[in-house]
Every structure is written in structure tokens, then in C-alpha cells.
């Protein structure tokens, strides 16, 4: 099993290197001039990317802002995977969480911060959790597949949110957005640099990752979740209530996504735009894959993807199309998902076969 753990860590790392290698070849091909000039171009591209992601305090803050929701949606999907449910509804749960949290936060004008903030977060997590639990309930009681139901629920959430911010929950401006939340419900800033502000959201996200890690590896509940994920029949035989665990897992998964949406609302935008998520819910699937469903791995995967995305803007200034980053991300996921390929490359397959 120790050997196994190393492989689990090694696969994403090797995948990242291979992806960077492939991207390098592409950059070399699209570069101009002789080979020497092309290599200089390649060097600039990567150094600009690193500078853009980590080179200055505001760059670093932007990376952290990007990675915060990714950690949470990654945890949401990864936790679901552990119980054998494929929650691709993080998008919708994030939206519902953000909507509910914003409604609460807008009206929290009379509450002091130390009450308003935790309650806003709880409301957001509850909304996301309940939204996901619907799919969990349908799976446990009727066998309806969660991939279908969560996608459907995504659309319902999307339309509810749209209706809310254009209708009853519009700030009166006519553009689709909610009123600004009460000041007392705004997450305090951890750091600020020029026009960039970094809220406490990242701390909350990392705490969430640690809590999920603890649940998965140190509690009976985590044991049950994993048993259901690996083998529901054996779980039932061992006295584990499979239906209850599926619903519970979905609820926790949705609560994490709801938290992601909440933090965006109260820590970044201070209002709700209806379509806030821009695919972060789906990014959770990639993050969970790269992080191998391990909460700590998910933090690093989010850092990687968050950094790549922030860095890509800077890279574009150097004349390298930012789509290179999408290519890098896709290759990483491709390799992690097809871990056998990487294992063969590492010749670990044979070693493992010996036992």
C-alpha cells in the first residue's frame, strides 16, 4: 500500500511534466525565427507565466483568488467520488448556495459581522447541500442516476438564479445582478495590494479541505462513505445503511459547492450575478481527478490550475496564446485519467505485478 501511495502522488506530477513538455513543443512550433530564437521565445513564455502567477504579491493574490473556489468544488466532486457518486452538479449547487447566501447577506444589515458571516456561510452551505441531496435522495430511493439528475438540477438552478437576479432580486439597475450585500456580511480581507484584495476565503477553503481529510481518514463516517463507494454490497453486509450514506455524501458534496459559491459572493463580488460560476463547478471534476480525490492533493491541484490560469494572462502579453494553458490542463487530465499509461511509462506496472 505504501508503494501505492507513491504511485498516486507520482502520477499527477509526472503528468504535469509531460504536459509542460508537450506544450513546449507546441510553443516551439508556433514560434518564429531560427531554433535559437524559438527557444528564447519558449523561455519567455514560461517565465512570463510563472511571473504572472507568482511573480508579484498581486499576482499571487490573483492566483489564490482563483484557486479558492476550485479547492471547494474539487473537494465536492472528490468527496462524492469516494462514495461512488459522480456529482457533476457542483455548478448548480454553487449557484444555489451563492443565491441563498446573498439573499441572507443582503438582508443581514442589522446583524454584527461575527453573526452575519457564519450564518451567511451556513445558509449557503445548506442551500447547496439540500440541492445536491435531492439528487442523492433520488438515487438512493429510485435508482435515478446522479449524473442525469445533477445535470438537470444544474439547469433548474441556472434558471432560478437568472430569474432571481433579473426579477425579484434585482438591484434596480436593470442589469442582471443582485443588490450589494450588507457590509457586516462581507468577508474581511486577509491582504490587499493595489487594487487587489484577498479575502479570508482561502483560509476557509483550506480548513474545509482539512475537515474533509479528517472525515475521510479518521472517522467511522469516512469509513462508511468509502466502503459504500468501493463496494455497496459489502457495505450493506457490514451493517452500513447505503441509502443514508449516498444522501449524506451528496449533501456534504453539495454543501462544499455551496460554500464555494458563498465565498465568491461574500468575499469577492459582494453581490450575486446569477451566472457567477463560469464553469468552476465543472472544473471541480478536473481538480478532483488531478488531486486523486485526496483533499490535500486537491489543494495542490487547485494551486496548479489557478496558477496556470492567472499566469496565462501574462503569457499572452509575451505573444503566446493563452489557450496553451487549456492544452496543458487537458493533457494533465488526460494522463491522470489514463493513469495506466503513465504507470507504463514509469515501468511501475511490472514492479507492481511481482507483488
Amino acid at each position, binding site marked *: *500500500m505504501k508503494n501505492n501511495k507513491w504511485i498516486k502522488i507520482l502520477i499527477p506530477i509526472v503528468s504535469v511534466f509531460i504536459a509542460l513538455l508537450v506544450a513546449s513543443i507546441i510553443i516551439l512550433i508556433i514560434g518564429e525565427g531560427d531554433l535559437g530564437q524559438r527557444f528564447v521565445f519558449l523561455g519567455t513564455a514560461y517565465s512570463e507565466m510563472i511571473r504572472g502567477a507568482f511573480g508579484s504579491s498581486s499576482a499571487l493574490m490573483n492566483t489564490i483568488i482563483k484557486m479558492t473556489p476550485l479547492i471547494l468544488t474539487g473537494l465536492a466532486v472528490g468527496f462524492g467520488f469516494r462514495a461512488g457518486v459522480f456529482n457533476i452538479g457542483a455548478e448548480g449547487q454553487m449557484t444555489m448556495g451563492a443565491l441563498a447566501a446573498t439573499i441572507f447577506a443582503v438582508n443581514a444589515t442589522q446583524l454584527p459581522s461575527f453573526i452575519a458571516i457564519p450564518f451567511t456561510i451556513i445558509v449557503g452551505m445548506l442551500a447547496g447541500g439540500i440541492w445536491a441531496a435531492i439528487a442523492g435522495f433520488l438515487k438512493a430511493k429510485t435508482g435515478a442516476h446522479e449524473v442525469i439528475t445533477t445535470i438537470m438540477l444544474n439547469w433548474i438552478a441556472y434558471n432560478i438564479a437568472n430569474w432571481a437576479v433579473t426579477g425579484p432580486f434585482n438591484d434596480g439597475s436593470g442589469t442582471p445582478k443582485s443588490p450589494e450585500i450588507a457590509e457586516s456580511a462581507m468577508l474581511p480581507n486577509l491582504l490587499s495590494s493595489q487594487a487587489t484584495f484577498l479575502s479570508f476565503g482561502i483560509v476557509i477553503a483550506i480548513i474545509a479541505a482539512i475537515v474533509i481529510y479528517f472525515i475521510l481518514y479518521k472517522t467511522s463516517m469516512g469509513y462508511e462513505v468509502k466502503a459504500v463507494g468501493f463496494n455497496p454490497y459489502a457495505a450493506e*453486509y457490514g*451493517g452500513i445503511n447505503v441509502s443514508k450514506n449516498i444522501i449524506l455524501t451528496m449533501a456534504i458534496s453539495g454543501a462544499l459547492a455551496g460554500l464555494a459559491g458563498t465565498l465568491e459572493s461574500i468575499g469577492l463580488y459582494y453581490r450575486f450575478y446569477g451566472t457567477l460560476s463560469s464553469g468552476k463547478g465543472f472544473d471541480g471534476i478536473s481538480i478532483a481527478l488531478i488531486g486523486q480525490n485526496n483533499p490535500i492533493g486537491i489543494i495542490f491541484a487547485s494551486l496548479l490550475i489557478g496558477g496556470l490560469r492567472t499566469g496565462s494572462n501574462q503569457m499572452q502579453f509575451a505573444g503566446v496564446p493563452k489557450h496553451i494553458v487549456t492544452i496543458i490542463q487537458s493533457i494533465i487530465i488526460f494522463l491522470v485519467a489514463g493513469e495506466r499509461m503513465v504507470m507504463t511509462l514509469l515501468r511501475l506496472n511490472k514492479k507492481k505485478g511481482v507483488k
Partner: protein
Amino acid sequence: MPFKIPDANEYDKYAVVMKGIVKKFPKVLANDNVDLYVKKGEIHAIVGENGAGKSTLMNQLYGLYNADSGTILIDGEAKDISNPRDAINVGIGMVHQHFMLVGPLTVAENIVLGNEPLVSSENKFLNSLARTADLFSLKKARKEVKRISDEYGLEVDVDAKIEDLPVGTQQRVEILKTLYRGAEILILDEPTAVLTPQETEELFVVLRNLQKAGKTVIFITHKLNEVISVSNNVTVMRLGKVTGRIPTNETSPKELANMMVGREVLLRVKKDVHMPKEVVLDVDELSVKDNRHLMAVDKISFKLRKGEILGIAGVAGNGQTELIESIAGLRKSESGKVTLKDVDITSSAPREIRELGLSHIAEDRFKYAMVKEFSVAYNIALGRHYRAPFASSGLLKGKDIDEISKKLIKQYDVRPQEIHIEGGSLSGGNQQKMVVAREIDYEPDCMLVAQPTRGLDIGAIEFIHKTMVELRDNDVGILLVSMELEEIFSLSDRIMVMYEGRFMGEVKPDEISLEEIGLMMAGSTLNEVRGISDEK
């Protein structure tokens, strides 16, 4: 007249001759210089215990494995069969234990699959068009399948979907498939393991029809009564070698058993007399349905006492699985009542039942009894992962889990003695020991034990048998289900025979013969059996 080993010049009268077959696997010598002689047009049985090398031998004949050395002669001619296609080309067909059928397709479609008839037309142009487009002709397929099924008396509805058909009919489709491909020699690997007794009878009729039509049939089994009722000649294998060849009408199940098992005829565990105590499990008129929503357990009643082993004998699929699952809380019952230690557990959840003192060695190790991705330690914790000594207030106690697991795998000799490896990486026997260790560590008052030794080697079987008798002597009530009659005989204090969801009668192991039990397993009541015996 004993079985005559043919001379080389007589090989042309034999459909199959396999000479000097040797097949090694990394850890076992599966076939050790095996010779097999199957006459044209006979039904030839190959019998032996699990692991005797029967399936390996047949898989080589069908080209799924290639022999390390040895020759195969079909109709007297040496053939090189290196894959199933070669086998099909020389007229060999095989029906595996697990059917290779496509559920949503019809019978006709399944049978022609891989060799589909194409649309043809009188019109030359249309014909060539159809040929180019590879147009499948369902009409021809249906016609051809009907013709074959009529020819050999294998009735099937060619338009029925496979997934709607019972297992016995699916098997018939598999047989038709081999015939469609032109098989003259049919190999059936444990064909009756999945069949009900009626379906078995129907299969035997089919086999006799095939024989009449000139086909040669080889079938693998470890059920001796089947051998006697349908075959012409028997080859017995043990531990990779042939230990006997005999014409069926000159032998008996008893003699075959001796050849199968070896000199120490029956591996019987030493067992002293033990007085059973109070009733621990009371099953009253219990009825349970199977996955197909058919009544699998039909108003069964019995009482199990502490300190006794009650064996349930029967052919697989007569409701034993459903009975056990229902008692364990894994399957809903239709009616009736189950009482464990005076508590009604008829509709209790598995955890409540376990907490009351019932543990369960499940029939299907991979499906139920273990999580193969979990470590050995976690597998030992399964079922008690939420409470002392493995957890307290919702937190796992890692150290205690490790310590208890270490102690148990040492005590039960689970190898390798390593608790952090995946449970699935253990060998079958060691997995079973791990499960047994866990279920005994519950300190149950009552234990459901289903097929505890299936697929295990002799050493592990002996260990598990010994352990069960010790449990009995410590006043645990054990309900044992097994398809292995020997196991039932050597362990049980009382035997109940189950047939089609009902009990055919209760007997003591020393008051009944294997043959009589066999008749009961085929649906005769105890009185009927005794009546027949008296006339003799």
C-alpha cells in the same frame, strides 16, 4: 469391460485424443502429463475437485490456453489449436460457465453474431450493393436458427430477447451458437452449476439428442450423480493428473469419489458428540422472493440451537442464498417470521441483527464479505467500524484497529501477515480466513455460514472445518449452506435438504447415504427415498 486405452492406429475412431498435456501456471502445475481419449459420438464426463485441472485441460482443447507440451488429435489427425478460431475451424464448440451473450439482442441475433448471414437478392446489381454494404439479413438468421433448433430438438423462441430468458434457455442458446458454427465436438464447462434440477434434466435430454445426431459431448462437472445419469465414459482428475478412466456403467458415485479425492477417501474433521442447548434462531414459515421476483424460499420453518451445526444441502439455486440473505437482513422477506434470541428480526436492518449476535460468512466473498480495496485491517473492522473496540464517538481508533487485526491474522494464519496491504491482494483462501476471523471475533451466538470453502485448497478447507466444529463446541449455533455434500456430511449434526425453496426432510448424517441425499436434492421426499431403499 474396463476403459481401453486405444493404440495409435485406433485414434481415428476418437473425436478427441489429447496426449501428454502439460500446462504450468506461475505457482501450479495445472495439467501434469494428462491424456484424454474421447470416442466419436459419446458423452464423456471429466470429473474432479476444484483445482483438479479440468477446466484448464478443456480451455487448451478450445485454444484459450496453449499447452506447454503435448499433442491434440481431432478425428485422428494432429491439430494445432492455438486460439478459439482454430478450435471452431476443426469443429469444436465450447459453452462456458459464464455465458457470452448480448442481453438486449434476440436469440437469433446472438446465435449468428460474428458470422451473420447477409442480404442477397436475385437482382445482380442489388445483390452486389447489399454485399458491399454488408447488409445483415435477420430473415435468414431466423430461418437458419430455426432449422438448427428443429434439427436437434432444442426449442427456443428465436425472437425472444436474451435478457428475458431464464438461465437454462440462455444455455441452450449457447449450445445452438456452437452448432451454428458447425461444432461436432461440444465442450460444456460445469453446465449444471447454474441450473435448477428441471433445467438440468432438460439439458440432459438435449445432450442425448445431440449424441443421437452424432455429436460428441465432453462435459466437466464435480457432481457425481450427473455423471452416472448421462455419460458413457468418465475421466477422473485430481491435482492435475488423471486418476481414473472408467465406463460409466461399471462405476458408482462412491468409487468416483474415491478416485477424485484420493486414498484418504473423505476429509472428515474429528467431531465429538456435543449436546445442543437452547434455540437461538427460529425461522417460521419464511417466504422470500429472488431477483426475478419468483418465490425462492417457500414457507420454510426450522429451529437452530446453540451448539449445533444445521446443514442445508441442495443444488445451487434452490433458495439457499435467498434464505441466508433474508435472515441476515440483506433481502426482504414476503411473509413469515425470523426470531433471534427471542427478538423478532424479520424486518431488522443488518446492523441491528449483527449487534444481536448473528454473524455471517457470506457465500459471495467478493460481492459481500469484503471490500477488496480496503486494507486487511479495515476489512477486519468492517461491521464494527463505528463502535468499540474499533471506534469511539465517531472517530476511528487506528491503533486499536491495527493491533486487533494483527492479532487476528496471526491467530487465523492469514498470509502474508501484513495488515496494510489491500484485502483484494490476498489469495482466495487467505481472504476467506480473514473473513472467518472477523466473523468469529464478533463472538456471535449464531452464525450463518454459506459455502465457506468454495474454491479453497485442502489445507484451508481443513482449517475452516476445524474452526467451525470448535465454534459449535463453544455453543455457537451454526447454519451451514453448502453445495458440497461432503462438507455437509462431515460437519452437520442435522441435515435439511432444500429443493425449490422447500425442505424435503430432515436427517442425521449417519443415518443416510450420499445417494439418498442426492435423491432428496432432486426433489424426492425422505419417505419416498426410504420407500425406494426398502424395496432394494
